[in-house]
């Protein structure tokens, strides 16, 4: 108990001394902005007449990707899924890997929009629109796979419970059936949420547009928004309700996607911790993708004042937290496998680590296990360069995770006689690269034609709005 004696005497500092900057909460909007500057800055990106060269270049590249997608899907539908690398032990390959990857990426949008809204995390405001758009486009890219990975995609409508003369229903016990509902619900709610959130801004754009046609188009989508108190009242309710609706979806969609695996009895799939593991992984992947997109966009459109270091740092923290959950899940897989004493589970783990795909597994640990640990350091967390690097690692890592789960588990399951190898073909890559192209093409269109940051919500972040809000709360 010697420490007590040596307890240092606290110095009393003069209160006038300025608090060092590092102890100040970093702002969610840089100082010096007014309602007008926010509106100007964000709406000009959309309404200025001249399209930036950089945008044109980027969009062209993305369109090239869309071309690859079109070609790959045409060949796919024309010839059959045999053009892919799937085979008898490995019935799912890039198709489901990419589906899960994209759906995971889509998670950040809803999480940021809905959960953080409900939790009143103000810092979400400047990135939510962007993240929601990203969600929608990721879900669009994801949707390609389940729709076209079937052997006979022209019969995909069998998966929907439509009334028919044969009285046939889908199989409600199948996780793929649940997927159909989960993903379509998610896509619908995300679209609505995004669109409802856009309405006040569409009205702003309508009002600020010089060209009559532009004004009419925005006006049409603004649904006659005039900003009356009644409108705001209804809007706030609708938005909150949608946020409430979306919140369980953040958990449900990836939980159900994880059921595709957890419900099956394949060693490496059949595991009760898949739902939380997948949800954490999805948030992890989603934030990584938001970072990947926000960092260059922020720079390119000079939005540093709105997407501040605080946003980036917070996202870095989320990355670290979800990354740790994911690592915990990886570790638990080993624990469960070894503790079970089940020969198939133990072999599956050994095969992951030392089998023919061991490189994938090691790379997975590097990308998802080691790289996010850099986020412990504030210096790296506040460096756009390092954030971007880590985000890229996570993007790759999450793809690898799905590769490790899907083909690596399938390629050597129960009967060694049926084992095989899986390799993606040029068409697998074609669809994958193409879906990335589609995603970016949509994203480029979005940043060009819609305000990528919520104008009216940004305005609420200003001190004058804050004061108002607090007053309102007090009542």
């Amino acid at each position, binding site marked *: 108990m010697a420490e007590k004696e040596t307890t240092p005497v606290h110095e009393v500092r003069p209160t006038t001394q300025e608090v060092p900057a590092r102890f100040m909460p970093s702002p969610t909007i840089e100082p010096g902005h007014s309602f007008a500057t926010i509106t100007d800055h964000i709406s000009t990106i959309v309404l200025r007449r001249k399209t930036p060269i950089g945008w044109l270049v980027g969009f062209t590249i993305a369109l090239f990707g869309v071309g690859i997608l079109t070609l790959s899907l045409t060949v796919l539908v024309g010839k059959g899924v045999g053009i892919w690398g799937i085979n*008898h032990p490995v019935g799912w390959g890039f198709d489901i890997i990419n589906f899960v990857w994209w759906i995971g990426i889509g998670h950040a949008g809803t999480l940021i929009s809905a959960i953080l809204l409900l939790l009143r995390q103000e810092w979400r405001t400047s990135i939510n629109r962007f993240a929601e758009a990203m969600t929608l486009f990721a879900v669009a890219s994801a949707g390609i796979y389940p729709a076209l990975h079937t052997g006979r*995609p022209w019969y995909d409508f069998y998966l929907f419970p439509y009334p028919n003369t044969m009285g046939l229903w889908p199989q409600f016990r199948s996780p793929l059936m649940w997927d159909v509902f989960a993903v379509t619900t998610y896509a619908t709610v995300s679209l609505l949420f995004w669109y409802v959130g856009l309405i006040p801004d569409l009205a702003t754009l309508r009002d600020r547009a010089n060209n009559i046609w532009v004004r009419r188009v925005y006006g049409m989508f603004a649904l006659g928004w005039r900003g009356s108190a009644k409108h705001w009242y209804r809007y706030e309710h609708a938005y909150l309700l949608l946020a409430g609706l979306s919140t369980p979806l953040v958990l449900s969609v990836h939980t159900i996607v994880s059921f595709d695996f957890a419900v099956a009895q394949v060693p490496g799939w059949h595991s009760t911790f898949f739902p939380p593991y997948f949800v954490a992984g999805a948030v992890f992947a989603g934030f990584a993708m938001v970072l990947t997109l926000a960092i260059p966009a922020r720079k390119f459109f000079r939005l540093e004042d709105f997407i501040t270091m605080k946003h980036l740092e917070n996202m870095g923290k989320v990355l670290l937290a979800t990354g740790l959950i994911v690592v915990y899940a990886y570790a638990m897989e080993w624990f469960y496998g070894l503790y079970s004493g089940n020969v198939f589970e133990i072999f599956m783990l050994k095969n992951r680590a030392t089998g023919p795909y061991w490189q994938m597994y090691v790379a997975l640990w590097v990308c998802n296990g080691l790289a996010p640990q850099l986020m412990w350091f504030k210096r790296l967390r506040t460096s756009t360069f390092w954030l971007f690097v880590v985000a890229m690692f996570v993007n790759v890592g999450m793809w690898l995770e799905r590769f490790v789960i899907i083909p690596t588990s399938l390629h050597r399951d129960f009967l060694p006689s049926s084992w*095989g190898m899986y390799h993606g073909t040029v068409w697998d890559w074609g669809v994958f690269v193409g879906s990335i192209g589609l995603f970016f093409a949509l994203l480029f269109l979005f940043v060009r034609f819609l305000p990528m940051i919520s104008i009216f919500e940004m305005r609420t972040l200003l001190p004058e709005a804050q004061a108002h809000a607090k007053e309102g709360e007090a009542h």
Partner: protein
Amino acid sequence: MSETRKLDFTSFRERIGDLRGREYWRSLEELSRSDAFDEFFQSEFPQQALPLAKGVDRRSFMKLMGASVAMAGLTACRPPGETIIPYVNQPENLIPGKPMYFATAMPLSGYARGVLVESHMFRPTKIEGNPEHPASLGASDAQMQASILGLYDPDRSQVVRHMGEISTWSEFIAALQPVLNQERAGAGGLRILTQTVTSPTLGAQIERLQAEYPGLGWHQWEPAGGDALREGARLAFGGFANVLYDFTRANVIVSLGSDFVEEGPAHLRYARDFASRRRVRQGERDAAMNRLYAIESSPTSTGSIADHRLPVKPSQIESMARAILAALGGGSAGEDTHAPEFIAAVAKDLLASRGASIVIAGDHQPPAVHAIAHGINQALGNIGSTVMVIDSPEVRPVNQLESLRQLVTDINAGAVRALIILGGNPVFDAPADFNFKAALQKVPFRAHLSLYNDETSLLSHWHIPETHYLESWGDARAYDGTATIMQPLIAPLYNGRSAYEVLGAMLGALNTSPYTAVRNHWFERGTTEETWRRALHDGLIAGSALPPRTVAASGAVPASGPAQAAGGIELEIRPDPTIFDGRFANNAWLQELPKPQTKITWDNVLLIGPGTADQIGFGVDERSALFNELKTRVVEVEYRGVKVHLPVWVVPGHAEGAATIYLGGGRENGGRIAGAGTNIYPLRPSTAMWGGAGARITLTSRAPYPIGCTQEHQSLDPKLVGERGIIRDATYQHYLGNPNFVQDYEHQIEQVAGLENSNESLYPPFAYKGHAWAMVIDTSVCTGCNGCVAACQSENNIAVVGKDEVVRERELHWLRIDRYYKGDPANPQVYHQPVPCMQCELAPCEPVCPVQATSHSEDGLNDMTYNRCVGTRYCSNNCPYKVRRFNFFGYSDYDTPALKAMRNPDVTIRTRGVMEKCTYCVQRINHGKIEAEKENRRVRDGEVVTACQQACPTQAIVFGDMNDPSSHVAQLKKEPTMYALLGELNTRPRTTYLATIRNPNPELVPAAATAAGEHH
């Protein structure tokens, strides 16, 4: 085109006279077959005019096939003109949709195997064994099954060709006349070359021909024929004879390089008889299990089911045989005494079973080995008891190698003026040193009757399309001499002619019908209308088996042959287990059928043992990595001055210092898919027909070669298989001590893993009140022969996917035979496990299908609804047995007319993007149920037989209604050795297995190994 208008009516009339049946002409131009027409035809359909590039893939080939058949005009779907007798019931009128069965026989290398052919509206669709035929007993092998595809093969030759140009039969006959006239005038030099002939009618025709043309020479040649057997019998018994074995009475069997369950005209019979002594059943302990010793170089099916297998170099088999004989007190052992303790144990065992043992030499062992084997059987008193000697059923047994040598010598001497080749393909398969190709071209008149316009046809002046055995009347004898009248099931599809017709024409009857030829032959020899009908109905002529001769093998042991050139690797050449000597090379079913021991499809490779692989620098790490990706290295085999490049493949259990290659690959002109593999006939001189020493094998730097192997090689780690409980086995002794070893083991596992209640469910089990279809497969007697796989393919219209798709692991066989190894890779024990759909009661595939395309029937079948399937492949992922098969592309050929006629009309053709799998032959089940319902009774046991069960030579597969306590399958389900594959997953499979019981000689098995060898 102006010439085409000048129609030559004389030639028209000639041609019309040559047309049979529904062979229509499309236009007068075609009829005139003018050059202009050909020109027009070829420019309109250029793909027909161009010789196909060698690299045509299967799919485009199928398309082209379709076109060519459409052009040729399919004259199918009509009964032959003469009366043929259906097997069981003769319906008063043909009932559409009701198949009829006709008995006939499939000749292979001359010898008949009795078959029943299922015929739908006079379209033969399926081959079954004829239960009454001694060489089949109802079983069938892959080649018999696949012969139905051979019949409809659109690549078969369809027209008579003269110098490669389309011609007619009458023109051929006209061209033949001067040749015959000269011969009649005594010019000499007319020769006939046939394959092995057992057909009494054909024999009589040749005799008549020889009587008419005394100078006529008859040669016989069969590349994978029984010269060694014939010569061996001659050495031992002083004359040509056939040696038959009765495995039902043999307690101890020693195989000297013999693959008696897989090769030879009696293999189905021998496999059945052999297996009859290996079934271990509760309460049937009186019939002691037999014991099989196999001494061989290349792993064979027989070796794989042996209780003891000794891999030796091919050259050592003879010395081993001598050593056994010496140990029994005859002759003297050579200096090369390999494995003396093995020999001593074998000898002791044989002596203990005097008169009830068999020593059998391989078909391709040198005559000396056969003679020694006969000597051993003589010494043991087996001859007359388990070994019977009969006269050769061949019309004129000859040493075919010498027969062909004589022919080539005569040709080279200019003594052959005309050569009529009836079947066979000597240009491709004659011994390399005969240089038959060059010799043939010296013959001034050469005609070739053949199913395909093949290598020999190309070098012949005349090519005549041959009828398939299902298209023509004929007769042939089985291995024991039993004669069968072969009835045609369909009129010749492609206007082929049979050998009977060619010989008939040479005898002066221009249009001899095979029917009259055969019928007259038998009626002249006492057959009456009644016995004729009986013979057609039964598929054999009762009492025509040849009687056993009372002979003794000469005690004299043939002297050792000249010492083999030392050094190098010994090469063993064997006929291919699927495509035989190359004659079935254009049969896609057989090409895609995994070879029993290697599971390789579409290729012939150089097989070596692991030690030899290390020796040539193909180390275990490299080969595991390559094999895992279904690739391998290419080696250069240099043997007697000839170099051949071949992919190399390592088989555990292959004798070290030796290598095996299968004949038949690399056909140059056998049809569009016959080019698969590598031609190794150049490595086959007449001095070493079945291989010899002195081969040099060097790895080449060529790019890794893809191999369509259906069972990944690296997965065969015995430890892995063992700890998964996939194979359960025990020795016979252990079984006698503890018949419940399987259950004991499972209880033990349950206790260790805490799985006692793992079968509990929240829901009450479904009560299967009606039928409960189930299957039991006895792994003890499965030889891995693949007959079931081919039967399944034929019955269920399973598409062929081609080598590329097999390499991509997309083969479609519903039934596969898994093969596992246990023990030392240098000489492991082999286990065969046929895996059809398990028809799980709690099928993991069913709940995961989002559209209910796979669902459970009330009698326990896991049904597939093809038209509901969208192809998510989730069911396949979730199937622990991986028995589901997906149509990644549109594999089924919907276009080729001939293949349409071939298909089983009761089974849907699956389209692209659909999952398919074993149905327990649901069409047969439903047929049985309908028949039973009509008679208001339950389906009787044995009434519904699955295709695999029906084909199985060893009756390893038993199917039936588990709810019928008297059924065979219900009895077997009670056997203590019964186990469910991956039963711990609680899938409750309806297909279960009986553990493999082996009967090793306790003297040869180290005590430790017996104890350790039970659970596995």
